């Protein structure tokens, strides 16, 4: 019964979000797209984090997706919409190949290597002048869907829905058991039949695909990109801060964090043109030190304490 209510609420929110273009102007829709992009990235980052691996390379896959899509249109004459699918698959395939190497690493070595990979992608794009346009970047012949604000919004929303769906699947399927077991105790996971490499690879490929897809959607919505935009470190920093603030190891946490920080970021950007990102650094520090479970974790804890008297811990009543 509790499930039914939450499904109804989720469906309601989804409908309202789909209907946004009917009553919002171009600027708010633009802000919404930016928030949704960060939200999708935050969720995808968290999906891998559930296995205990911290990626600092979100911007790398995002940028890779941007360029794969842009170059497929520009050099291969691909249909813009198809190029988004292509870019997502491309990012996934790259992650699959890199995974055989990178996923042998743990803790700080994994994190720093993902950061290094992002830089490698950026430098490669930077240096392949003839193919990638070099540091000046590439300009597409046009914006997808002729630049219709509503269509661009729905495209981005679609990407977000796919990401939420994937994350929800990770939460409700055996991926949840596999990733949590790996995060908590690899030895125990191994001796209970969990093929650690396989599940890490699935998580890495899926999250990279999602990040590549969001990058492709971004580039097709703006019609141009360059290495410093596509591989902007903010695409790593902001999602990370959002997921941490909202609460990690869940779908709802990064979503809450993205709404809070994404909207305030737009406001801050106008107030403080230089250095508004200091807020994100401070949020990361405060969350790690004082509320590692994030907002959602705190709310959950509070509601659990409140309900404790009324609930009996017993065998499953399913």
């Amino acid at each position: 019964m509790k499930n039914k209510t939450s499904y109804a609420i989720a469906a309601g929110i989804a409908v309202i979000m789909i209907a946004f273009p009917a009553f919002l102007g171009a600027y708010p829709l633009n802000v919404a797209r930016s928030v949704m992009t960060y939200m999708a990235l935050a969720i995808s980052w968290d999906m891998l984090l559930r296995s205990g691996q911290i990626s600092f390379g979100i911007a790398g896959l995002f940028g890779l997706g941007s360029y794969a899509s842009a170059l497929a249109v520009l050099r291969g004459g691909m249909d813009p919409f198809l190029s988004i699918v292509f870019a997502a698959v491309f990012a996934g395939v790259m992650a699959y190949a890199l995974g055989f190497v990178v996923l042998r690493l743990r803790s700080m070595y994994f994190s720093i290597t993902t950061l290094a990979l992002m830089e490698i992608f950026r430098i490669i794009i930077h240096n392949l002048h003839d193919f990638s346009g070099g540091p000046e970047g590439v300009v597409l012949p046009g914006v997808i869907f002729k630049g219709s604000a509503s269509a661009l919004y729905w495209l981005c929303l679609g990407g977000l829905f796919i990401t939420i769906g994937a994350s929800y699947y990770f939460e409700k399927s055996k991926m949840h058991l596999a990733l949590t077991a790996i995060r908590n105790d690899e030895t125990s996971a191994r001796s209970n039949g969990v093929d650690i490499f396989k599940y890490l690879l699935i998580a890495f490929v899926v999250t990279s695909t999602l990040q590549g897809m969001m990058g492709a959607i971004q580039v097709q919505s703006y019609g141009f990109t360059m290495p410093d935009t596509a591989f902007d470190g903010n695409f790593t920093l902001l999602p990370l801060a959002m997921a941490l603030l909202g609460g990690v190891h869940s779908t709802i946490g990064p979503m809450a964090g993205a709404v809070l920080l994404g909207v305030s970021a737009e406001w801050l950007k106008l107030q403080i043109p230089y250095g508004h990102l200091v807020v994100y650094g401070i949020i990361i520090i405060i969350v790690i030190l004082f509320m590692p479970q994030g907002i959602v974790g705190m709310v959950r804890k509070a509601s659990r304490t409140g309900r404790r008297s009324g609930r009996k811990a017993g065998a499953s009543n399913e």
Partner: protein
Amino acid sequence: MANKRNATTIVAILAVVVLLLWRPTVIIYGLQAAGLYATIAIPMGLILGIVHIVNLAHGEFMMLAAYATYMLCQSLGIDPYLAMIPVAIVTSAFGFLVYKLTIRQALKAPELNQLILTFGLGIAITQTMNLFFTSQTRKMSFGYVSASIDIGELSFGVYNFVFVGFAILMVIGLRLYLTKTTAGKAALAVGQNPKGAAIVGIDVDKTYGSVFAIATALVGMMGAVFITRSAVFPTVGSPFTMKSFCLVAMAGIGNIPGILGASVLLGISENFLKAFRSLRGWSDIVFFVLIITVILGRSIKGKKA
């Protein structure tokens, strides 16, 4: 094993000789770059080796020190070398404060929390500077920086050799500190086994604090030297964080002299690529490739053992 090491040494020496004959500047500039990398990586190695924390805000301390030097020198009209000691003291105090207020609180947290924490610290420091100073670059020029030597056809700048000097001094100084002084010996013991060190009565917390203060003092000194030859802007330190981590990982955690060797390898490889006009843009990729190779090599070796 010994044979393999000998073979590697011979190949390395041969490579250096060939390079010296063909493009001497690759070696000269390579060594100079190596000096700069090593001076910044060594303090990070010290923290990682003893406190076991990867400080992803490491380069940011260097950047802060460079700004502090810039302001001091601009307002008093003095040379950065005069500002070096006061700046080191200020940076060290700031480093100690950051340790006490943040990193110390996360020492017992999972390693990954510490990583994210210092990542956040780096962002906060960079962006605070961005807030006050904007992203505009600031530079000072000094005559002595352009000193050069001519040997026959060959002409090259010599100033950057100061970094090599500092790097060697740092290694010797730290070695003396860690093996000859009581505090240094205690730090070494804490680095190897914090629990054991605590049992024999060493104040682990105090040791961590002082190691942080020493490391940030060293980084502060180098920030002052850095601004004599380079422009400073808020994100100038970030690449040094990455490069430092790369070098420390290459040398192996706890191996401070090894950082020198790793720096030489990195500096010369980068300048080797820079020697070819068409490959110049790729020189930045060298250390990322090195870091990935080295880390992977280590992890695979570790698995076999």
